[in-house]
């Protein structure tokens, strides 16, 4: 495995379109639920242990070779908000484009052909990790980290939060990120032998509700 490849994939400047999404932070700011670094941290922690853990386990399972079609159905069942399903597929389509250009691989070609409208982004993340010669833990880390770094970066713009404070939030989440990534690999390994039903399904009610409210706004800074 190449450690440098992990840095390339995890880099926020990797051109996969993630910067256009706030991960639900824009809706939470508007609702008055995120007002400062402390509430941002609680938001990120909740997101990490729910949809973040689900995404990381999907990514790990995909990196371990679980069928992407099965994983994509599992992602649909775990994403009740249509706005979030659309966002996940759009991000998946952008990631597969960037990944095919960066790490050409027949599995990525096959995925792009099978899902012309995009597969759920974490599934693409797992296959991208495979193509880049990375492992399931790397895929889980990338997915989990991106799930909190996106909102943190967005809140810097939305609230003019001090970037040092936002980065401090991410640093304080490191132990939780480690745990979520490890658990995700364990769940992914279980899915290899027992099928995708064993993957976690933890949900965050206000992320789902907020995503639909956000999708109906006439003017917004972020796509989701």
């Amino acid at each position, binding site marked *: 495995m190449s450690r440098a490849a992990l840095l390339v994939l995890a880099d926020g400047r990797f051109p996969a379109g993630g910067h256009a999404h706030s991960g639900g932070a824009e809706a939470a700011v508007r609702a008055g639920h995120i007002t400062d670094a402390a*509430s941002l941290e609680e938001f990120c922690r909740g997101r990490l242990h729910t949809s973040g853990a689900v995404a990381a386990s999907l990514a790990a399972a995909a990196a371990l070779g679980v069928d992407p079609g099965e994983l994509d159905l599992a992602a649909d*069942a775990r994403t*009740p908000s249509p706005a979030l399903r659309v966002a996940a597929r759009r991000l998946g389509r952008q990631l597969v484009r960037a990944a095919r250009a960066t790490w050409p691989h027949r599995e990525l070609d096959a995925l792009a052909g099978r899902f012309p409208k995009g597969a759920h982004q974490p599934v693409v993340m797992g296959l991208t990790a495979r193509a880049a010669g990375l492992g399931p833990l790397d895929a889980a880390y990338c997915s989990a980290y991106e799930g909190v770094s996106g909102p943190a970066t967005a809140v810097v713009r939305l609230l003019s939060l001090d970037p040092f404070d936002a980065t401090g939030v991410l640093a304080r989440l490191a132990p939780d990120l480690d745990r979520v990534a490890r658990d995700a690999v364990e769940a992914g390994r279980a899915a290899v032998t027992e099928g995708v039903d064993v993957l976690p399904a933890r949900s*965050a009610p*206000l992320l*789902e509700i907020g995503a639909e409210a956000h999708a109906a706004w006439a003017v917004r800074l972020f796509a989701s």
Partner: protein
Amino acid sequence: MDRVTTPAGARASARILARGDGRGGTALPVLEGEGPLAVRRTRGSGSEAHVMLVGAMSGPLGGDHFTVAAEAAEGARLRVGSAAATLALPGQDKAGARYDVRLTVGDDAELRWLPEQLISAYGSDLSVATRVDLAATGRLLLREEQVLGRSGEPPGRLSSRLTVRVAGRCVLDQELACGSGAPGGWDGPAGLAGHRAVGQLVVVRPELAAEPPRASAFAEGAAVLPLAGPAVLVTAVAPDGLRLRRLLEAGLATLG
């Protein structure tokens, strides 16, 4: 109340089977409960049989394991309610309690599963698993309401997983974990943000596949979410159980 209590806690189960009687009505060939779980047939309406779960309300306690299985077989119309809220309480047993609900809906059958709310009392530890399997033309209305803590008290630990399959395909898989010991952030801005009641309604109707409703956050803290399949989820958070019920009913009303 009679309780079959062992050091490992009480085990109780109830079983309901409804079947079309061939004359436009619904028969209940199996209706049995044991220990703290009892089932009663109440007056139905039209072709629909009504069943009431009685007696689960003072449990489950730590270490208890309750199982309820209900099946609306081909042609049946079945409605199941509960006589009162279910209260999860701490037990002498340090182990958590489990409540498994297994629902099956056949072709041309309808199940309305409408129990009263589940209240997670301080110090309790309960895992609920609800699994629904529907045939391709089965219909479902399922309500699940959780209230975190009795009035003014902090909640116990509650984890609840709801899985719905239609013709073998999973259309919804959701787990909610909250209360002391739940993963961090459950009560933060992504989770419940201080709300003390959370609930969902699942509607499965074959015609929803072709004509899904529009997704909408129709009220503060509530949304109608068409799922990837012939199903819709109404999800809501509220300060208390009463306001939660109103939100869920309002969401259901938008489906017509």
